[in-house]
């Protein structure tokens, strides 16, 4: 038995899709968390952080029920496309976005909040709109946080297991990710193959994280903070 490359590419595709979507979705959410003065903001922060503490099986269970034909959301999707979202790649993407949300949003928000208020104030006095200030001042100064958040959501999705197990249905090439493949092989006592694939995932994850943190370190050095 050798490595299931199909599962590996599928997982990579899932992780890239999810981290890209989270980069886009996470920006406004993180901006709001960083700068909103709303009194009950902490409740939103708690909701965003929930996937960190919730067992993935709980998340997966809710996603499965929400995607199924018994829920309004599921019915709407079925009417639209003719099939349920469970057991599809899109279904995995939705589950993974929820699952990895805090890993993107929290570093984003922390780096936004860390930007010197004097700079944003100066930008505003010079007549820049909040949006322009965000893209010209806040975002460039937050690049390390953006890289960290994107890398963490990428890596977190690569290693996702419980949610995929609950909503995936283990379809080769569609929902059988590397972690599911490793689990299957271990369950079938095929330790040699489980070992090989696990080692590949370990090495890959390490390289990705090492590269990201390496790049990030340089970004800190060249950052325009004086």
């Amino acid at each position, binding site marked *: 038995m050798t490595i299931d490359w199909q599962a590996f590419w599928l997982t990579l595709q899932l992780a890239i899709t999810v981290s890209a979507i989270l980069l886009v979705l996470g920006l406004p959410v993180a901006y709001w968390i960083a700068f909103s003065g709303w009194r009950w903001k902490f409740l939103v922060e708690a909701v965003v952080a929930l996937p960190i503490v919730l067992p993935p099986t709980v998340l997966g269970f809710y996603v*499965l*029920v929400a*995607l*199924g*034909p*018994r829920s309004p959301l*599921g019915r709407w999707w079925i009417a639209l496309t*003719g*099939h*349920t979202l*469970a*057991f599809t790649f899109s279904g995995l993407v939705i589950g993974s976005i929820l699952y990895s949300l805090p890993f993107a949003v929290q570093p984003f928000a922390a780096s936004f909040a860390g930007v010197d208020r004097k700079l944003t104030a100066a930008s505003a006095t010079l007549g820049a709109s909040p949006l322009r200030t965000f893209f010209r001042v806040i975002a460039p100064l937050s690049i390390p946080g953006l890289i960290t958040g994107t890398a963490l959501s990428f890596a977190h999705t690569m290693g996702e297991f419980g949610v995929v*197990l609950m909503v995936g*249905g*283990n*379809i080769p090439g569609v929902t059988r990710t590397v972690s599911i493949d490793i689990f*299957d092989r*271990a*369950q*079938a*006592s095929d330790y040699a193959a489980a070992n090989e694939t696990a080692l590949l995932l370990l090495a890959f994850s390490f390289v990705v994280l090492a590269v990201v943190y390496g790049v990030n370190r340089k970004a800190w050095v060249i950052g325009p903070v004086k």
Partner: protein
Amino acid sequence: MCTTAGWAQEKTSSPELVVAAAADLSTALQEIGDNYERKTGAKIKLSFGASGALTQQIQNGAPFDLFFSADMDYPRQLIAAGDADGASLYQYAVGKLVLWVPVDSSLDVAHKGMDVLLDPSVKKIAIANPQHAPYGRAAVAALKHAGLYDQVNDRLVLGENISQAAQFVESGNAQAGFVALAHAVAPFMRGKGKYWDVPAEFYPPLAQGAVVLSHSQHKKEAADFLQYIKMKEASELLRKYGFTMPQS
């Protein structure tokens, strides 16, 4: 069942039996265990999963006393590896495979049987993972026997064990599924679906065996419980929950 945690253990005289059991037994064994506890004061703790997955856990030292498999091969495998006591092997039941659809489904499964799987409304068909669940292998065998496997192969979704396969159809995410008769007649699914008995000649018989495990510290008590399984009271419950008896 036994919901009290370990710290109460010191006070009880009888030891706690930890039983690993195939997922198709989830209802029947629960009730049998409850009856046994009431009768003898023993404590039974149940852990359900796919037989292959449980076998793998046992081989890696999981602290089970007794193993109820959904086939005979896994117990034999454990015996051969020295992880189970060969003399204790007992075939306690024969499982049955059914094709199950939700009750509001337009599929006429009772009359058309497996042909309903070719209906365009069937997008996903749930089965247990054939890699480590005997019911999954039975489902694949039945599909091949009916000459349908190649046509539906790309619509199969795999549950981690037969209970998850049942849950996939029960939740409506799959439109049909091969589940254990034990699930179809279990209280939590009764009335929610309609099913078709897959004819016995479509798949190798699901003879199910139980063994006492070598690492058990309570072999005597485990053998006693296994003895109870052989009695009429227990076998009637197994029959009630969709199993047939080997001798019948």
